[in-house]
């Protein structure tokens, strides 16, 4: 079987927050690898550093030290502008609270990443077509001109999933994607993520809910800023 390339390759990631006189080591030498096409959950109790890991892996911040290769590109030491461009080109985000632009139609929300894409060769019309197509794929073909406040939580999360996919990212980062949803909509969202995964989308999901983590191939457990253990298909590793 052909070896899949690594999308995430992080070694000895350390993130230190300076809080006045003392420092907090939110990440303390975490190493993590995610291969193309994987669906990975990151779990851990609060304070374990999973949010920080998510922010570092999502290129929202740089690690204090350590190496981070995203899709083969060294992104451990980039400035704000370069990080923004990496996010725009290679990543898609799904947040717990959806983070859609208020009073803005679903379509506009989905187009947003393309809007900031300097390399895009698509015309405005092509961007629109693409966004409409993806909205259709997440089951919102009849909601493209609805604004977030007119949509249910599950529908809003679908819009944000569409937004995460519109720029053909190498990886989608999901932060507690079902955290604000009832169990039925939550299950629907997870089914949607699983179906995306089956189509080959690489997904890294942060969650504290073991039931949600079960949808994934592999679960990485964090503790005190380090990777404590990994579970693949229910079998204990290490």
């Amino acid at each position, binding site marked *: 079987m052909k070896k899949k390339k690594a999308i995430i390759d992080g070694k000895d990631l350390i993130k230190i927050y300076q809080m006045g006189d003392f420092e907090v080591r939110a990440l303390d030498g975490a190493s993590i690898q995610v291969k193309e096409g994987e669906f990975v959950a990151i779990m851990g109790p609060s304070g374990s550093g999973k949010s920080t890991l998510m922010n570092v892996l999502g290129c929202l911040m740089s690690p204090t030290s350590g190496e981070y290769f995203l899709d083969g590109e060294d992104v451990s030491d980039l400035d704000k502008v370069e990080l923004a461009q990496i996010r725009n080109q290679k990543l898609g*985000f799904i947040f717990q609270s959806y983070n859609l*632009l208020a009073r803005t139609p679903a379509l506009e929300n989905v187009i947003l990443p393309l809007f*900031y894409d300097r390399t895009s060769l698509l015309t405005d019309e092509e961007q629109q077509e693409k966004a409409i197509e993806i909205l259709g794929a997440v089951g919102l073909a009849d909601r493209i001109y609805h604004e977030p406040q007119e949509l249910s939580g599950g529908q809003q999360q679908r819009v944000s999933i569409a937004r995460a996919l519109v*720029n053909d990212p190498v990886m989608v980062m999901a932060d507690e994607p079902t955290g604000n949803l009832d169990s039925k909509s939550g299950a629907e969202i997870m089914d949607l993520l699983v179906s995306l995964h089956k189509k080959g989308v690489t997904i890294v999901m942060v969650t504290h809910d073991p039931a949600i983590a079960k949808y994934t191939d592999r679960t990485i457990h964090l503790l005190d800023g380090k990777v404590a253990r990994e579970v693949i298909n229910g079998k204990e590793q290490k």
Partner: protein
Amino acid sequence: MKPIKVLKIAWLALLKNKVRSLLTMLGIIIGVAAVIIMIAISAGTEATIQDQITGLGSNLIYVSASFGQGRPGESMTSGGLVYDDAFAIADQINGVAGVVVEQSSTQTIKAGDVTLESVTIMGTTADFPSVRDMDISSGRYLTQEEIDRTKPIAVLGSSLAEELFGEQDPFGETITVDGSIRLTVVGVFEEKGMVGDVDYDSRLYTPITIVLEKLVNNQFSKFMGDRVRLIYVEVDETVGTEGERTLDDVIYQISLLLAKRHDVTLEEPDFVITTQQDIITTQESTTAAFRSLLAWVAGVSLIVGGIGIMNIMLVSVTERTREIGIRQSVGATPNDIRWQFLTEALLLSLIGGLIGVAAGVIGAWIFGQASGMRTVIVVSSVLLAFGSAAIVGVFFGFYPANQAAQLDPIDALRYE
């Protein structure tokens, strides 16, 4: 990112908060409107004054007596202008088109059953209509010969003629002045309107010799002789244009002549010569000062408007922290965010500026209608106000835009 897209985002953002956008623009609107209205008022005032000055007649030189300049110990009778000075100027100075001497007296007049009190009887000379730019509508004006002979005739201002005789033709009618002096009407002037605060239409014009000999108080008359306070000299149109004689040459010639006639030196004259231009210059410097004061006041209100924009933009940046975070998470760079907010500020001030221009133009018109003052929209003031609004927008939009650009995406996303 393409500028047109930045513009579109900014426009949509403003539309989402219509009321706030409008309130933000209010300062700019008022500022711009104030600049335009204030400059319109001052320009209107200036134009009115200009009209009045030119309404007095163009190319005028005023020769006035300066009693205060007489040498100590001499009686007043030795100083000042006399009636004959005017004719000397007319006869002996080249480049003089006409000379007018005026002496007025306020009297009660009677024509038929109509009696009018406090009518200005204007004793004047033959060149009066040309120097004062007044035209005869019916009949004729006074001739020099009639003036020399103290002929009891009169020419009426248009409104005075109507008051005394109504629709009737006043030609040949008799007017009794001061109970005893009977004047025959020979003509009526066309309407002239107000010049300064002088109503030329309500006056009665008669030979100056009549006023000097019969109307001016006897005691005063003996004391003053045929003294006059003011001689109007109208300069030939060629003066100053042919290069041979300039206005200054004419003034110098008049000074020499009068000094010789009055036996005074040019260093200590008993008369003062002013030109129309002197009056216009004085007037211009006054209105210029007035105008720049108004412009400053209005400019300050523009700056206050700008501070208003900055305030609201700062609030708006805080309020929209989450939105900024979302944009950053999908790849907006600090510059993208900075441009978005700067463009919003610029759009606000430009739209505010446009509304302000409209409000200013309409406001100036309404003000003109309501107050009866003349207002003139000065195009340069519109451009100035609009341009200042744009500059104010960029200047005061920069700080909030920078604040927005420097937000950390994680903090911004977490912001509730």
